[in-house]
């Protein structure tokens, strides 16, 4: 065999090793990279997330601070919005998404889920979906101090001393981000999901969801819930008002997985049933 072949192979080996080395760092971060392709005659997945079994105790907390702004309806307690079930069993605020989808339509998540408002000391909406690399736009409609303390895939801490100004926060890493307010509004909580592809939906008040433009194929579909139980409550004394405040800690997030077959131009249906156990 002529020597140049060997030289060639040695160079090839070197090139492969170099390529592997230079790609390695990114491979760890983006092994599940998503590729945008034209989806012709894609299918649709519709369905609902419903509660099964007896209704659990829905966590509520007293509104102990800035009651003029935070409690316009003079409620005794505030629903933490961790578990929202309509009378016929539909579960809202559950995220339903396709797992391990490698290619499909371009990002088209609703812009409304990329804008967070702090209004009457609630986070609106309660569940946000932001494409990885995009900004979450955050504002406060309240004339009092709020701070948006993000922890999880993105960690960030931005105060809102003034009303009605949008502050963009870069969502760099995919994953889940917990939101809390450190300005004494211990009941405020929300979740941001930073996602790599557009096949995500948040269930509406009836527990319904729709995923459109899905390339035909078989997928794993997952329902994600932030978790509704309060696992511990710590009583703290509000120095100024001398009121005892409860700072809640929530149970872990939960998921349910199913298989779904999507056929060209057709609708598939998936029903999730979630329960206390």
């Amino acid at each position, binding site marked *: 065999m002529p*020597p140049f072949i*060997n030289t060639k192979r040695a160079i090839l080996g070197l090139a492969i090793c*170099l390529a592997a080395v230079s790609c390695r*760092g990114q491979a760890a971060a983006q092994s599940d990279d998503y590729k945008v392709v034209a989806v012709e005659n894609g299918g649709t997945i519709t369905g609902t997330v419903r509660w099964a079994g007896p209704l659990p105790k829905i966590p509520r907390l007293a509104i102990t601070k800035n009651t003029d702004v935070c409690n316009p309806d003079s409620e005794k307690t505030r629903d933490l919005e961790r578990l929202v079930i309509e009378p016929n069993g539909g579960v809202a605020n559950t995220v339903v998404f396709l797992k391990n989808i490698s290619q499909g339509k371009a990002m088209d998540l609703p812009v409304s889920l990329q804008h967070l408002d702090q209004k009457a000391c609630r986070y609106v909406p309660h569940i946000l979906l932001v494409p990885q690399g995009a900004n979450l736009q955050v504002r406060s409609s309240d004339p009092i101090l709020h701070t948006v*303390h993000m922890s999880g895939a993105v*960690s960030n801490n*931005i105060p809102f001393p003034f009303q009605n100004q949008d502050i963009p926060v870069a969502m760099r890493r995919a994953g889940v981000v917990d939101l809390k307010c450190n*300005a004494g509004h211990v009941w405020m909580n929300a979740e941001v999901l930073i996602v790599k592809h557009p096949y995500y939906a948040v269930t509406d008040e009836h527990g319904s969801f729709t995923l459109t433009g899905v390339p035909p194929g078989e997928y794993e579909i997952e329902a994600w819930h932030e978790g509704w139980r309060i696992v511990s409550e710590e009583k703290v004394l509000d120095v100024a008002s001398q009121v005892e405040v409860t700072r809640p800690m929530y149970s872990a997030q939960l998921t349910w997985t199913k298989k779904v077959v999507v056929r060209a131009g057709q609708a598939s249906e998936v029903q999730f049933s979630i329960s206390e156990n």
Partner: protein
Amino acid sequence: MGVFFCAGSAGRLAKKANPAVGDDILWNAGMTSRRSRTLLLMLALLGIRFLCCLTVSAQESKAGNLTGQAKRGKELYQRYCIGCHGVRGDGQGENAPYLDPKPRDFTLGLFKCRSTPSGSIPLDSDLFDTIGRGVDTTGMPRWLPLSSHERADLVAYVKTFSDRFSEEKPDPPVKIPSETPDTTESIQRGGEVYQSLKCFECHGEKGRGDGPSAASLRDSKENKIVPYDFTVGTRFKCGVSNQDLYRIFMTGLDGTPMPSYLSWVTPEQAWDLVHYLRALQGQNATKPKETAHKDLMARR
């Protein structure tokens, strides 16, 4: 990880280069060309090693003209840091139960003292400064008995606990323009900034750390944390100078409830606030004998 990968591949190629594997079709040529090929391969391997070192920046740190190495930093860490920060760098060392606030969990890649905006990883020089400066009012001492090179090595090792350092780039540092005159008017304006930004919610009307939200504060690990009491006049967590105070306020202390006010004030307002906070310290104020980065570099 990158290093191990390279070493593994290099090992595989090196085995092929062994003339004993003569029946491999690749190595069936004459002795002379086999030698030259072996030489070529060795050169190639050297090249790979060299390039590995260039690409594996996650194993290194840069502080001024120093380059820290994680390998050396690991030995130092196991001698000096492991007791509090733990084997895995998660802040669960054997001394952790006795400390308040708790030792930093390096696996989160979240750091209080940064020159970069909230949400960004710190610069290597920020971590380097923290090691030399210590974190006042906490269990973190000033590690000046270690040489500046050893501290740079520790920075390199601390960075290996979080993927953030290999996957993200730090944002540009927050600019600190030159200080405005510290006058009665500036202090007065600073008091108005303190009110309008509602700093009193946590730090209290008189800066005593007793604001209405103070009791409910938790850090990112859900541990209790108290707001700074300006009137006791101790050093700040991230430095002692007016520039340090400006930076703390603008970048926030990530992992704590102290947020970043970068989006909300002009540099003039921020300097006014610094002057007001200094006035709250009154007679207790530490004289801001500069412990700036260049001084920390100069030690040993």
